[in-house]
C-alpha cells in the first residue's frame, strides 16, 4: 500500500450523524412555516410585516453584535431567523414594529450573545424578549385583533382572547364551566382548533403547530418527551380543576400559547435537560406552573413565564439527574454521593 494516503488517529466519536446546526435550524424554520401561513391568513399582511421585522432585526443584531465582540459571524447557522420567527409568533399583529425590533435586540444581544452565543443562552431568547416587551409595553402586548378583521379595512377590530374570556367570565369556577361555549365572543371548539380566534401570531392555529411538531418529530429534531409531558401534565391538572369537564380541558389546551410553547419553545436544546429523566421533570414543571398561573394567577396566560422559570432550573435538574456510571460498587457509590461526587 502506498504511503501517500495518511491514516489519522483521533479520539472518539468516530461515527457522526449528519446533523448540523444549520440543518436543524432549517428544519425548525420549515416546521414554523404552516403557523406563519395561518397567521397571515387570519391576521393579514401585517403578520408578515411583523415577522419580517423580527427576523430582519434579529439577523442584523446577530451580525453586528458578533462583529462588535470580534467573534466569527454566525448568521449562517440560521438560529437568528428561528429566534426572530418565534418572537413574532409571540406578539399580537397590531404590535408596533419598532417595539418588536427592541424585543429582537433583547433576544439576540442580551439573552444570547452576552452569554456567549448559540447554545449558551440561559433561557429561551424569544420568550425572554416576549416577557421584556410584556412588562414594558403591557397595553400594546395585550391589544388583540380579531381574525379576518384586516379584510374590512384599516380599522382594526379588537377582541379578547379565549383565555381573557375565561378570566373575565369566571369560567375557571366549576359552576360556570357549562357556559363556556355559550359565552359571548368565545369561539367554538372547531374554530379554536383551526385558529379563528384572537391571540398572538403563531399561537392561534393549533393544527398548523401540530403539523410543524409532527415534521420535527419525523425529522428527529425533537423527541416527543417534552411536548407530550408538558401538555399531558397540564391537561391532567386542568382535568382535576374542571372535575372531569372535557370541554374545559380542550379549551385550555388549545387556548393561549400552550402548543407553541410545548412544541417549539420548551424543546430548545440549550435550555432543556439532556436526559429523559430530566426532561420529564422539566416538562412536568412547565405544565404545573402554566396550570397554576392560569387557574390562580392574575394574568390570563402563563406559558412564557413557566418555561422561563423552568429554563432557569435546568442546571439544577441536570445535576439531580446525572446518570450513574455502570459498574460502580454500591458502597463506593454511596460514599461518592455523600461527598457530593456523582459517579
Amino acid at each position, binding site marked *: 500500500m502506498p504511503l501517500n494516503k495518511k491514516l489519522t488517529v483521533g479520539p472518539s466519536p468516530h461515527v457522526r450523524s449528519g446533523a448540523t446546526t444549520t440543518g436543524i435550524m432549517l428544519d425548525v424554520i420549515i416546521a414554523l412555516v404552516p403557523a406563519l401561513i395561518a397567521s397571515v391568513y387570519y391576521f393579514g399582511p401585517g403578520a408578515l410585516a411583523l415577522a419580517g421585522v423580527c427576523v430582519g432585526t434579529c439577523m442584523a443584531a446577530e451580525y453586528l453584535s458578533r462583529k462588535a465582540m470580534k467573534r466569527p459571524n454566525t448568521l449562517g447557522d440560521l438560529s437568528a431567523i428561528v429566534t426572530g420567527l418565534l418572537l413574532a409568533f409571540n406578539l399580537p399583529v397590531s404590535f408596533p414594529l419598532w417595539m418588536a425590533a427592541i424585543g429582537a435586540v433583547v433576544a439576540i444581544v*442580551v439573552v444570547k450573545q452576552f452569554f456567549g452565543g448559540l447554545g449558551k443562552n440561559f433561557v429561551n431568547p424569544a420568550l425572554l424578549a416576549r416577557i*421584556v416587551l410584556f*412588562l*414594558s*409595553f*403591557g397595553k*400594546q402586548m395585550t391589544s388583540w385583533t380579531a381574525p379576518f378583521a384586516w379584510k374590512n379595512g384599516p380599522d382594526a377590530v379588537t377582541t379578547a382572547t379565549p383565555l381573557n374570556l375565561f378570566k373575565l367570565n369566571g369560567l375557571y369556577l366549576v359552576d360556570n364551566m357549562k357556559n363556556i361555549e355559550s359565552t359571548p365572543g368565545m369561539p367554538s371548539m372547531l374554530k379554536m382548533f383551526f385558529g379563528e380566534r384572537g391571540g398572538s401570531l403563531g399561537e392561534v392555529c393549533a393544527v398548523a403547530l401540530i403539523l410543524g411538531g409532527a415534521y420535527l418529530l419525523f425529522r428527529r429534531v425533537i423527541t416527543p418527551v417534552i411536548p407530550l409531558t408538558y401538555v399531558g401534565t397540564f391537561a391532567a391538572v386542568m382535568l382535576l380543576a374542571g372535575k372531569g369537564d372535557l370541554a374545559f380541558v380542550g379549551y385550555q389546551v388549545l387556548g393561549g400559547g400552550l402548543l407553541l410553547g410545548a412544541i417549539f419553545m420548551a424543546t430548545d436544546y440549550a435550555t432543556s435537560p439532556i436526559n429523559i429523566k430530566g426532561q420529564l421533570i422539566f416538562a412536568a414543571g412547565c405544565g404545573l406552573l402554566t396550570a397554576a398561573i392560569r387557574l390562580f394567577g392574575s394574568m390570563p396566560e402563563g406559558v412564557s413565564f413557566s418555561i422561563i422559570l423552568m429554563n432557569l432550573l435546568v442546571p439544577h435538574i441536570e445535576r439531580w439527574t446525572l446518570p450513574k456510571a455502570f459498574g460502580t460498587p454500591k458502597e463506593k457509590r454511596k460514599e461518592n454521593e455523600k461527598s457530593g461526587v456523582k459517579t
Partner: protein
Amino acid sequence: MAEKKTMMQEFTKGFLKENPVLRLVLGTCPTLAISTSVIGAIGMGISATAVLIGSNVVISALRKVIPAKVRIPAYIIVIAAFVTIVQMLVKAFAPAVDEMLGIYLPLIVVNCIILGRAEAFAGKNPVLASTVDGIGMGIGFTAAIVLMSIIREFFGAGSLAGIAIFPASIPPVAILILPPGGFFVYGLMMAFANKLAEKKGLKKATLEGCDACPMAQACALRGEDKAESEVTA
C-alpha cells in the same frame, strides 16, 4: 498589606480599579433599589459618601482603641451615628429627597460599602489615607449609581431628573425601572467596567486578601489564600 500606595492611588482606586459597586459588588441593594431616578441616586450617593468619609475618619482615628474582637459592633455604632446625622440633615434641608429614599436612607447603616471600607481599610490605615479612601470610594459609588439611574430613568421612564424627555406618544421601556431591568443594567455595567479595567491592565479587584474579610473566621477557603501568599513571599 500589598505594596505601598501613594495618596493619589488611594484616591483613584475607588473610581474603577476597586469601584465598590461595579468591581467589588458591594452595596448592591441600594444600588438596585434607588437607581430608578436620577435625583434619588444623587441623594443616595451624596448621603452614603458623607457617612463613608465620616465613619472612615473616626474609625481610623480609633483603630488602636477598638478591641479587635468587638470591632464590628463598634464600627456599626460609629456608622449609625453618622447615618443619623445625615438623615436629620436630609430631612431638614431636602425633605423631597428624604421621601424618595425612604427606608434606604437609614439602611445606609448596613451598607456593605461603608462597613467594608471600615474593615478593609480604615481599621488599619492612618486618618489621612482613610479620608482619601473614603472620598474616592464615595465618588466611585456615586458615579456608578448615578450613571445607572441615568440609563434606567432615561429609557425606563422617558425622563431625566424628573423632566420628561420623550413625548407621551412614545412609551418608555418600563421594564428598566422594574427590578429585572435593574439587574440587567447592573450586569451590563459590571461587564463594561471589567472590560475597561482589563484593557487598562488592572487585576481582578479583591478586598485585599482573605484576612480583610469580615467572614474570615468562618470561611472555609481562608487557608487557600494564605498558602498562596506564602508561596509568593
